[in-house]
């Protein structure tokens, strides 16, 4: 079956099996391997992408269900060679170790900040509870998201933040 969608601003059209999961489409058909697969029960969130402005687990969606959608993956988050504040925050605050959960975690945080631009620590912890990290104990992930939230509200990076938002 034919599926057409936009990933990181690039239109894609492919013939796919009806059963193909969106995560396998992104990884194996399109070749964007920054989106990871960590489980088979939609628990871990490593496959989180932004679809039509919302953070979704791409292992719970068939590629066909994403027909016509606009999708943002980790590869599309930095713009013009400049890291998104969330990416900078994770680097700055040591919000990652092995890095396997990181793309999904960053995009879950992206979805969270779209809804709650200045979340409390508690709201951040709730906001990312669908994403598992086995390395960090989450403390530095929370700090990274706080760091990004502060920068996205002010100055140059605020414009960057809105730019990303307005593209969806």
């Amino acid at each position, binding site marked *: 079956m034919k599926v057409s969608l936009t990933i990181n601003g690039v239109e894609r059209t492919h013939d796919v*099996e009806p059963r193909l999961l969106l995560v396998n489409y992104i990884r194996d058909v399109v070749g964007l391997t920054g989106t990871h697969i960590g489980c088979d029960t939609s*628990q871990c969130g490593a496959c989180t992408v932004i679809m039509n402005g919302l953070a979704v687990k791409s292992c719970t969606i068939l590629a066909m269900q994403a027909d016509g959608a606009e999708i943002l993956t980790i590869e599309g988050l930095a713009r013009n060679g400049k890291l998104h504040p969330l990416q900078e925050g*994770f680097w700055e605050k040591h919000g*990652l170790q092995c890095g396997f959960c990181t793309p999904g975690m960053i995009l879950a945080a992206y979805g969270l900040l779209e809804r709650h631009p200045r979340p409390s620590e508690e709201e951040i912890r*709730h906001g990312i509870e669908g994403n598992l*990290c086995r390395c960090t104990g*989450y*403390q530095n992930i929370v700090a990274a998201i706080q760091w990004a939230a502060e920068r996205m509200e002010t100055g140059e990076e605020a414009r960057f933040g809105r730019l990303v938002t307005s593209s969806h």
Partner: protein
Amino acid sequence: MAIAEPPRMAPKLVGTSIKRKEDPRLITGNGQYLDDIKLPGMAHVAILRSPHAHARIHHIDTSAARALPGVIDVITGADLVDAVNPLPCAFPAGGVENHIPPHRVLAVDRVRYVGDGVAAVVAEDPYIAHDALELITVDYEPLPAVVDQEKAMADGAPHLHDEAPHNICMHWTAGDRAATDAALKSAEVVVRQHLHNQRLIPNPMETRGAIARYDPGTGEMTIWMTSQCPHVHKILLAAFVLGIPEHKVRCIAPEVGGGFGSKIFVYPDMAICAVLAKRVGRPVKFVETRRENYTATTHGRDHIQDVELAATRDGTITALRVRSIANLGAYASTGAPGVVSTLFGRMVSGCYKIPHIFNEAYGVYTNTSMVDAYRGAGRPEATYLIERMVDLLAAELQMDPAEVRRKNFIPPEDFPYEPSGLGLVPYDTGEYAGALDLALQKVGYADLRRQQQQARAQGRLIGVGLSSYVEICGLAPSDWVQKEGWGGPLYESAHVRVLATGKVVATTGTSPHGQGHETTFAQIVADQFGVGIDDVEILHGDTAQGPFGLGTYGSRSLAVGGSALVQASAKLREKIKAIGAHLLEVAVEDVEFENGVVAVKGAPGRQKTFAEIAMAAWLGSSLPPGMEGLLEATAVFDPPDCTFPFGTHVCVVEIDRETGQPTILRYVAVDDVGHVINPMVVDGQLHGGIAQGIGQALYEAAVYDDNGQLLSGSMADYAVPKATDLPVFELDRTVTPTPVNPLGSKGAGEAGTIAAAPAVVNAVMDALAPLGIKHIDMPLTAQRIWAAISG
């Protein structure tokens, strides 16, 4: 104990929280993990696994699977009997007989746990490969299964292996049984407790897998693998399993998404992929699903322990007797028995000076997934045991648990210290009371106890739990570990190469799985030459790149591998000075090498830069007579002793009386890991370690039913802690360097996990003390606590 010389350059980068060099690729989706690798012509492997815990295989029919379009090949155990040897166990328990049955990469006539491989399919894509598994029919005759290690030892229990009577792999003892028995008999106070250190699933976020490519032109077999130790995997696969000459096997660990021990071991799929790549003439890839990972990758812990601790009325510990039965699962995994003997068995006395100790440990086969090292590996089982017992003793004597600890700590002047009769290499250094005092001060212990009294008066259940730990890290030296049963060395290697333009490439024999070695090791090397962090590249994980290395486990990468980098660099520093002196036309004694320049002592400005000397070494025409060109050095560091990090963690919990729900109110950790190379990275290791320890204490358990079905068989059923399940960690540290390596560093990867579980459990038990509850086995779920409260 020999003492290595300290690093000779003033540190500039060492000791600072430099942001990680790994991160830019990982935060942009450019990291390349195993499943991200796509080779031309690559096919995909899926493995059919037993749904039975114990069964005879009468017949396997693969014809329908073979007929499925897109299927390239199907193999069963019978196809591999001649081609592939059983997987070796590299770490039997030392000094005793070990009964190690053959572990075939695919079962031939019998399966022994749910997840045991019975057939493998190669297909054009992973979906087809998994479809084909559904089409294979296996005629099983189910057999009685046993999952509990105590039941497995009993007469009449289902029997797994002809080679292992009573399902016992090994029976190992340490210490003086008679003296310990006598001390217990005459003791003023004895506390006894039966403990279950439950089975855990490691849960790296990346599952395991392998890719194999065979080059018929060169005869080289290249295996990419999710590995913590590709060199070890290479020699085990080449020399023991596949029978391919060692120089024709290359193993590569790409980006590895966590491991926590589970990626140390040799697994069937590595060999299956190698065989299939050659058989079908195409590269093949296997990646576990998470459900497969839960059964086919090793688990951790699973000890049933009976412990007796004797003391005088004033709280002085006089004897410790331990009997521990470790569940090894269905086969002896690569390191399983040795983890029980060396890393658990010799560490049971913790931070305490105990005159009489006797410890006996069994390793037992059951119809469950294999158990091997998981973060801490033996030391969490030892630390939990002694720290629970010390709290039970304190409760019995109505003494403050901090005082009982302080009273029995090994005093600083007793180091190096050998625990009584346990046959361990000596603890290197320790200032246990210092870490305890700092932890108590940081948490405000005296105030906390007052607040606890007030809260209790109001009927609230608040508890304060301590855990003082010492662990064995920097695993080495080779001669000792070989006596302990380990079948190889435990040195670590380094190769340092200064390029013509003054850039440095250093290869380490260890192989990270997320700890940031590319950063911390670059800090070490850069300081040795006085160059910037971005002038140094650390290579790892490819057996074709550098000398043989042992890998990352036992918190050894920095203490042993980092030290090898210092040694290799030190060799080059001598050569750099000699070249510099030659170019400056002075004697080598008259120059010094600091801050990236070789300068004539007392003659400011007469100097040659590191880059100028690198260029001279490359040109090769202006060197001292007889000196070879290029700046390259290899070092192998084999320390005289292990390292023994320590510390005290304090946990404060409140229990909801109505529901049993425990909530961690404070978590304070004071750790002493010796000199710290990158504080940010070390704190990150401690955070993650504590998270896994809290996971064991409160949430996690691998649960089997009596038939050997894994009930906690998916991430929907096994409680990996979420962000909402964990507290804020308040960290501090003391610094007691080790003399056994040139960095003075001890290792930090496992400390948090080892310390945390007893701190949390002791806190919960302290909270429940007014109700007369003395012990609940982990995990301390709300349900278990509620049941205990409800009596």
